[in-house]
């Protein structure tokens, strides 16, 4: 399914509005006494909400009481609102998601408390704000699931398989990611900028945050909370890639390692405490009451729709009881249309605009009969308009039509209005200006989102490029060093051989032999280094997966101890893959050898599975063992050259790095999952092209 061309506008029409209480709370400022009173009354009118708020806010009467209450009301209202949204995807566990969100909220709160305890002098962050922002940082995902359940199911599956960045996949499959969607939700519901920025910008490198972000400290704090919670593996949120490190974020936020550890230590307890306020178990039973029922949500006054809404009454007065006002964004081919009929609530439509209307020509005044170039609009609204004929007033600027007002009337409409031309011209100028300004704002918003997206992609690309550059530099360095080392090594090797042949004393002869053997070892290490730094290019051709596995088993058996290790094969139907068979077999053999080494000869089990994933169109090989597993400290270094968790001298630590090089050279990918005493699983993905 190709991504919809302008999915963002759909949100506006498909999502429920905020509860009245929340709207009031957000609108009220902390200083205005009367506003606070109203808010307090509104909350008191909903005992259930009140109860939950009190569970979140210990002391509502304190100085920061109102801000805390506000955050609590917002948190609870939105939580309930999102909870009531449908989820037909079946792939996304709402409960796990909320566990994660609640954990991030609590973690954020704890980190903020640590920050104020340290009184670090840097930007202070209110704990209540951190809580709400943490709770809602991924709310875009709920909206994605509600709006595009099937597509999102695909996103989740593919992310699980490829372990990539879920935002990239969301963009490529659906067309928009949860970050931008979260931002739009925040705008739609008029949430404070802090929440909007956290939803939109969390996860970015601190240095990459846009200058205009006002709550950078908070965003960084939430990013840190996110990373910490994922480390604790609380709940599941679907993402696997974490470009920014915890240490970096902690430093930017202003917390030392102790403080971070203290926050993490208190996490479980805090989550327990807060759970009650959100009643994670019975979300559906608590539908919010008192929702505003208008068909149009409380709008940000700066959007084109808001401007059109403001124009409607005057237009109705001037032209006819029923008018349609449309706005065309310059860069897009969609039009937003507002249909106002009598005193009914105005209706909004989103239409594909196949053709931008031509400019007015001639001096017949601004009012014209509707021509063919408005067919796309008329086919949708003609039934609603009165009168036999259709007329319209174009709003034009800079040589382009950016919108217009359409209505129905009798035969002599243009003549009738001819007398009011100067007034009409004046009004239409003002309308054009207002509409244009709002459109410019709209475009700026879209541009900002695209920039943030590009920034993220740049971040990933830069990391990859740096790694690539590093590899090339390493390759050159290794080649030069290896050559330099080989000559002296040849002399040591040759002389020690000669000595071994000449010395009479057997002990001395043994010593000479040792020198020779060690020089051989050095030579092997240098060869490994050379291989790793400047690997042989892969010669790819189509080969059956079964052959690769068979060859790998043969190689592994000759390499690792040849004991009858119980290797179980579960080979599903898989098409041929386009790889270098020698290299990939060698790579799989390395993994197998590791697996055999890790398991105990008697009861150990090593399993090889192969399967074809039709969604991602790739072949997945999984090698599982029930051995000792890897320490979480060791796992991130598994692919580092020369790294070995075993005593030095046993294995040179090049097996996995070489395997990774070979597999990637054939266009595949490899990753490891392991928990101590739970064994290790290695997933290799190979492609058909």
């Amino acid at each position, binding site marked *: 399914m190709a991504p919809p061309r302008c999915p963002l506008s759909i949100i506006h029409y498909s999502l429920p509005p905020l509860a009245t209480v929340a709207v009031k709370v957000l609108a009220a400022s902390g200083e205005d006494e009367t506003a606070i009173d109203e808010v307090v009354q509104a909350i008191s009118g909903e005992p259930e909400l009140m109860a939950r708020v009190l569970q979140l806010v210990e002391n509502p009467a304190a100085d920061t009481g109102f801000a805390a209450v506000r955050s609590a009301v917002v948190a609870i209202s939105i939580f309930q609102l999102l909870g009531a949204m449908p989820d037909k995807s079946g792939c996304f566990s709402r409960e796990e998601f909320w566990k994660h969100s609640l954990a991030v909220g609590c973690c954020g709160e704890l980190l903020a408390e640590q920050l104020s305890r340290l009184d670090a002098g840097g930007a202070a962050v209110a704990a209540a704000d951190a809580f709400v922002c943490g709770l809602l940082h991924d709310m875009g995902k709920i909206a994605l699931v509600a709006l595009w359940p099937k597509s999102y199911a695909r996103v989740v599956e593919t992310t699980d398989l490829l372990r990539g960045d879920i935002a990239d996949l969301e963009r490529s499959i659906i067309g928009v990611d949860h970050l931008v969607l979260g931002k739009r939700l925040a705008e739609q519901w008029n949430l404070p900028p802090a929440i909007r920025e956290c939803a939109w910008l969390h996860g970015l490198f601190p240095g990459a945050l846009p200058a205009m972000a006002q709550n950078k400290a908070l965003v960084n704090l939430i990013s840190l909370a996110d990373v910490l919670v994922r480390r604790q593996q609380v709940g599941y949120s679907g993402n696997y890639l974490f470009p920014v490190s915890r240490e970096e974020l902690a430093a930017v936020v202003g917390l030392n390692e102790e403080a971070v550890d203290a926050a993490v230590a208190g996490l479980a307890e805090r989550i327990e405490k807060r759970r009650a306020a959100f009643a994670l178990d019975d979300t559906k039973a608590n539908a919010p009451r008192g929702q505003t029922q208008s068909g149009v949500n409380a709008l940000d006054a700066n959007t084109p729709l808001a401007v059109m809404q403001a124009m409607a009454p005057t237009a109705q007065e001037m032209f006819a009881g029923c008018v349609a006002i449309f706005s065309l964004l310059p860069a897009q081919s969609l039009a937003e249309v507002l249909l106002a009929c009598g005193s009914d609530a105005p209706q909004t439509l989103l239409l594909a605009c196949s053709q931008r209307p031509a400019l007015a020509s001639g001096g017949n005044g601004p009012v014209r009969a509707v021509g063919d170039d408005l067919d796309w609009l008329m086919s949708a609204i003609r039934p609603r308009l009165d009168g036999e004929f259709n007329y319209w007033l174009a709003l034009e600027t800079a040589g382009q039509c950016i919108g217009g007002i359409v209505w129905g009337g009798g035969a002599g409409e243009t003549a009738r209005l001819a007398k009011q031309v100067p007034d009409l011209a004046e009004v239409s100028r003002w309308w054009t200006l207002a509409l244009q300004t709002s459109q410019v704002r709209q475009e700026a918003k879209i541009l900002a989102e695209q920039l943030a997206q590009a920034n993220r992609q740049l971040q990933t690309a830069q990391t990859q490029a740096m790694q690539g550059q590093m590899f090339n530099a390493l390759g050159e360095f290794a080649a030069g060093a290896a050559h330099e080392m080989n000559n*002296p090594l040849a002399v040591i*090797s040759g002389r020690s051989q000669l000595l071994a042949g000449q010395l009479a004393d057997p002990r001395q002869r043994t010593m000479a032999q040792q020198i020779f053997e060690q020089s051989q070892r050095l030579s092997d290490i240098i060869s490994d280094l050379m291989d790793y730094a400047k690997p042989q290019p892969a010669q790819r051709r189509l080969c059956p997966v079964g052959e690769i596995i068979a060859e790998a088993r043969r190689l592994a058996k000759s390499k690792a101890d040849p004991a009858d290790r119980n290797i179980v094969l579960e080979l599903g139907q898989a098409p041929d893959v386009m790889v270098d068979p020698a290299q990939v077999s060698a790579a799989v053999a390395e993994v197998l050898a590791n697996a055999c080494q890790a398991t105990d000869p008697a009861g150990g089990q090593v399993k090889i599975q192969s399967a074809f994933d039709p969604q991602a169109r790739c072949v997945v090989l999984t090698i599982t063992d029930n051995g000792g597993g890897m320490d979480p400290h060791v796992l991130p270094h598994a692919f580092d050259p020369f790294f070995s968790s075993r005593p030095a001298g046993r294995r040179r630590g090049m097996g996995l790095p070489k395997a990774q090089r070979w597999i990637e050279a054939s266009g595949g990918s490899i990753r490891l999952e392991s928990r101590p005493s739970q064994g290790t699983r290695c997933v290799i993905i190979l492609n058909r092209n």
Partner: protein
Amino acid sequence: MKTIFTTGEAAAICKVSQQTIIRCFDSGRLGGFRVPGSKFRRVTRDGLLAFMRENGIPTDGLDGGKLKILVVDDDPDIVELFTDVLQRYGRFQVRTARTGYEAGMVTQEFMPDVILLDYLLPDVNGNVVCQTIRKNPAFAHIKIIIVSGVVKQDEINRLLKAGANEFVKKPFNIDKLVALIDKLTAVE
């Protein structure tokens, strides 16, 4: 290894005139035989060697069956190593060169049976030396073994195409290297 020589070849080796060789042959001072059914003379290796020794002619050109090896490498320690190793066996005669240019000159003069050629030389790369030597039909019988620390399959292939016979990695195993030299020169 040549075991039979014509009078012309024997003369070239001894650096005397062909007439001298014929006279010595005829007078029985130079061992050999006549080709059956013709009057052509043939000198045996043993006969020639004995003749040369008896007459104090330097046996450089024909040295008791010793194989001639030219070692080309710019690292003096490596050169010394090769020389020691080979001379220890007693059946090799070793000359050395440090640059590609020198290698060419010594090859002309010394006419080695085998060249041990380092790939990275100060003036040219080993493969250029290879190609140059191969261009000369007089050197067609010379076996070239490239010795190098750099071991990439595509580079090795290029070297073999440029005319090298074998490739040996540094550091090397002495016994294996000598066995290789013997193998290459055995088919004659």
